[in-house]
């Protein structure tokens, strides 16, 4: 039973990390436009295979 004295603090650290990630996500405005973020994965994926010529310009930006 005394293992919980170790495990619970570890769980707490995980929760703290999750909260930190959530705060970062909110602060970087990821929740501002849910439509857009939801479909952005489609666009980025396809672009890398079709438009490699522009990759040099876009890889350092959002």
């Amino acid at each position, binding site marked *: *039973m005394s293992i*919980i*004295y170790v495990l*619970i603090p570890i*769980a*707490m650290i995980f*929760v703290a990390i*999750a*909260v930190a990630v*959530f*705060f970062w996500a*909110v*602060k970087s*405005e990821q*929740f*501002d*436009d*849910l*439509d*857009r973020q*939801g*479909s*952005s994965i*489609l*666009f980025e994926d*396809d*672009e890398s295979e*079709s*438009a490699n*010529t*522009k990759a040099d*310009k*876009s890889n350092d*930006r*959002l």
Partner: protein
Amino acid sequence: MSQDKQCYHCGESVPASVDLTTEINNQPQPMCCIGCQAVSQAIMDAGLKNYYKFRTEPGTKQSELVPDELNSFSAYDLDEVQQEFVHSDDTDIQTVSLSIDGITCAACAWLIEHKLKPLRGLQKAMVNSTTQRALISWDKNQLKLSDILQQISAIGYVAAPYQVDEQEAKAKRSSKQFLLRLGLAGFSTMQVMMFALALYTGYFTDLDTEFRDYFRWVSMIFAAPVALYSAQPFYFSAVRSLLSGRINMDVPVSIAIGGAFIASCFATYHGVGEVYFESVSMFTFFLLLGRYFEQKAKQKASVSSSNLHKLIPLTATLINDKEHIEVAAKQLKVDDVILVKPGEVVAADGIIVEGVSSFNESMLTGEHLPLTKGCEQQVFAGTINVEQPVQVKVNAIGSEQFVSEIIRLQEFASNNRPAIALIVDKLSRYFSAAVLTLSLITYLVWHFFISPEDAFWVTLSVLVATCPCALALATPTAVTCATAMFTKLGIITRKSGVFETLPKIKHVVFDKTGTLTYGRLQIHSVMIHDNSVSKESVLNHIAALEQGSEHPIAKAFRDHLELKRFPVTDVEHHVGKGISGFINGNHYFVGKAVSANGKASTQQMISLLRDDDLIAEVTLSDEIREDAQSSIKQLKQHKLYLSIASGDQSGHVHAVASSLGINDVRAGLTPSDKLSFVKDLQSANEKVAMFGDGINDAPVLSGADLSIAMGSGTAIAKNSADLILLGDKLSRFVDAIDVASKTTRLIKQNLMWALGYNLIVLPLAMSGNIAPYVAAIGMSASSLIVVSNSLRLLKDAK
């Protein structure tokens, strides 16, 4: 018009005479106009074909001629213009917020970002498809703002810089903070509930005190941020209401959260009594959730009704000693003379000193036909000059302008609406006061008469058990679900009171133009007086003559444009009368002329003259909305009394009314007539809903019990309405009534349940007969029942 071909870009049907294509993904696709073709070509040239692959909505039609002013973006590079909305930091990086018209889905946002990316000197481009806004920063040494705007316009969007007003920035900040508080409360609640389960099970088996205390400490660590950070809005609101000498729901909420948390900390520290950490967390989380959705809905509505100040252009052409200089509109002074070119928006209120032209005042009045104005007549900022260049002497600037006045009136009206009796508000005030008094009595009675050491715990269990959370959640959860349903139906709610008012509506009053009709002209009938011409050639001739005009009449003929066979030369615009020109050697005139039978027409009628001989007359009418007929029928089935109150004096109102089956028609009403009409109805104790658009309807919209604007209506009308019907579907209003009556029913059920529960539990708690954990479970259960009852609203979603 052919139905078989649709424009690949905008989805509208392609006129038979048009043969334009763009090669998209190695396949030629039909285009309806040169605008769409140019835009789709620009998109393909930039290698952005993914736009067509992933978009979920068609693009916007491009054929509308872009006013000159929008094409000359160079004005935006002027320092005076820029200083208003461009922010630059110490380096050469400048940042601007743009509002972009024409964004229909996420693909548009992607398209704009990627179109801008290759520009040299661009630092950041972020487009938000929900708010239709973009945040762009660039290096001013390498790039000009006008270039950025040009790029955006090349792919078919209209971008204009705007200044984020303070209120909006504040709303955005607070909504972000709300989300942080909510998320934190959510995470913590999950953890605390887990430990609470362990603690409760320990109640029935036996849990070592050592572990019990350990779990309690851990729960406390998780609950602390919730009670200290997430619940802050309740504390502030409670303090505010106490300072203003009133008691609102947040007072007992704050006392319960604060009291339960402090008492639980005390219990944890001393290892005695009970802990309520899970109640504190969950309660806070649920309440925040309700308020977050409420706030989000409100914010969305205010963004979508757009920035009204955008109506006024940023630059104006100042006439100074015969020299024309472009200046920032803000710098204009009274008595300056400005030049307003055709297609331009008037930058300031003023009096015409030279020239005659027509002005489209639809953004102010909702009437779609331009008014002819000449010397000595007043023009207003925000209206569009349709035909000829005019010189205007400024006589009002800034907040003195008509538009600003209107905006102020709207804001005033929306803040000062007769308060719709919010029963819950009143109820909660009495309830809160009652709970506080009873807790105090309980404490005093237990302290002096029963047992002083139990007094605090019994009082706390009174507060926890009767915690008004079910009551507090009863309305917001139902309203939130109803708002979500409305959004799904394409209706934006701007005031939460509508759910109460809607089911009580007895009488619906329509303003004709733009609500029952589209507010755009179409060809109704053609009367031919010269047998040598055909109907089609008459329409082709008129279309050719009208091609360069921005007048709504001209737009009705766009589909008949066939330039190859009807080349026009020497076109002359006769302001307020019509257009003349030569086609194949004959002199033609189209416009207002004497009617063949000399009678005044009840509808819009224009004549075509060849060498001064009348050859044909075309009657135009305002097209009735597609779903108007069926919606009117449905409304009648709901036993609603319908009438039309229109400012239009022509017989067209009666024609529309009789074809729709509305018997009560009042035409030619002034705005104050409309208002007194509505007031008359209200004095007979009837709740009146008013459909309207435009400034002329503003008084009646604020006077009615409920006001509704169409999504395509003017920005000002949308800003003053309680409901906005997106997609312009009248039938949605019928659905809205159904949803609203269901909502009121659910709110009543919720309130009955919450009150009933509290009334039963209160005496038990006061007498000390409620075990603390039962109090906590009862409280949670009562809120869960309320929440799930409200969620039933969403289940019926089609």
